[in-house]
């Protein structure tokens, strides 16, 4: 990866520049909102990226917890496989909500299982815990952007910065607070069980992600309706610009997460070495 880092950096920079041009210049101007609608090209991809990172944090936390006992780990593998199969079958047996394709539900089920086993393969041992820290931190950065760009769009469009009581807005704020609490716990707790407590908090915290995502599907909110699925629609050119921006943000998130991951690995090695040094000094005395 070290060798590919500069190349990936250049590709990401080019993608971000192109995505910025597409969002500010090439995308069509929305008829009622005007140019302020272009905030959407940063707001939505940031939210999707944050959700993906929090999902990875959820998977990594589960892996960290189940790996503590080999028997539980094996059972968890079967449960994940079972859930994936149940979702695939359920997608074709139970009628999905309006605007949702059966194949999309089935693919999501398979993707969840694939991500679970990919994380299991790529992040053995306590590397899953490192992945959890990294994805929570980078996810909070993207979620912060969502919470700031949202009101910057709402003020000229709605006439207010924030709609108190709106379930999408409130649940997103709660999600951000949960992960801030998670990072605070990791930073300031000196207990030997910090990683376990944080993993449990992450598993419960991640339950807020579907609530945030589906809140606009099932509740009447001030927040606009979904642009993909859920009966929503969008101009194809706008959708193209949105997806270009999301791809650019995914590349950027990957690069930042990789750098943060390396930093955490080195930090833990240094801490281990410092511990060893202190032990040797104590013994020498």
């Amino acid at each position, binding site marked *: 990866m070290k060798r590919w880092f500069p190349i990936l950096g250049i590709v990401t920079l080019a993608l971000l520049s192109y995505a910025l041009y597409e969002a500010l210049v090439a995308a069509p101007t929305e008829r009622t909102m005007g*140019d*302020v609608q272009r*905030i959407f090209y940063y707001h939505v991809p940031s939210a999707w990226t944050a959700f993906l990172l929090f999902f990875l944090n959820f998977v990594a936390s589960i892996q960290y917890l189940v790996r503590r006992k080999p028997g539980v780990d094996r059972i968890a593998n079967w449960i994940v496989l079972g859930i994936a199969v149940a979702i695939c079958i359920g997608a074709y047996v139970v009628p999905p909500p309006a605007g949702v394709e059966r194949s999309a539900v089935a693919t999501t089920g398979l993707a969840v299982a694939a991500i679970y086993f990919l994380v299991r393969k790529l992040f053995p041992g306590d590397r899953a815990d490192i992945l959890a820290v990294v994805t929570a931190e980078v996810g909070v950065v993207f979620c912060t952007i969502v919470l*700031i*760009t949202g009101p910057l769009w709402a003020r000229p469009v709605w006439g207010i910065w924030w709609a108190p009581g709106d379930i999408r807005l409130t649940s997103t704020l709660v999600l951000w607070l949960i992960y801030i609490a998670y990072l605070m716990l990791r930073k300031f707790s000196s207990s030997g069980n910090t990683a376990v407590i944080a993993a449990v908090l992450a598993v419960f915290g991640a339950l807020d992600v579907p609530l945030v995502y589906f809140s606009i599907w099932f509740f009447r909110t001030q927040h606009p309706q979904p642009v993909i699925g859920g009966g929503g629609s969008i101009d194809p050119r706008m959708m193209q610009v949105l997806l270009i921006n999301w791809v650019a943000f995914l590349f950027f998130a990957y690069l930042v997460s990789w750098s943060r991951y390396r930093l955490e690995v*080195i930090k833990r090695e*240094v801490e281990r070495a410092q511990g060893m040094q202190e032990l040797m000094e104590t013994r020498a005395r």
Partner: protein
Amino acid sequence: MNFLYAAYAVTWVIHIGYLTTLVRRYARLKKEIAELKK
């Protein structure tokens, strides 16, 4: 238009701010490694 530029500017200020903290943390770790090697 001001709100649009503010949103884009804030996004990049946050990202660059976070990248700066990463660089600082790397520098601090490098110092610690140098001290360990002494």
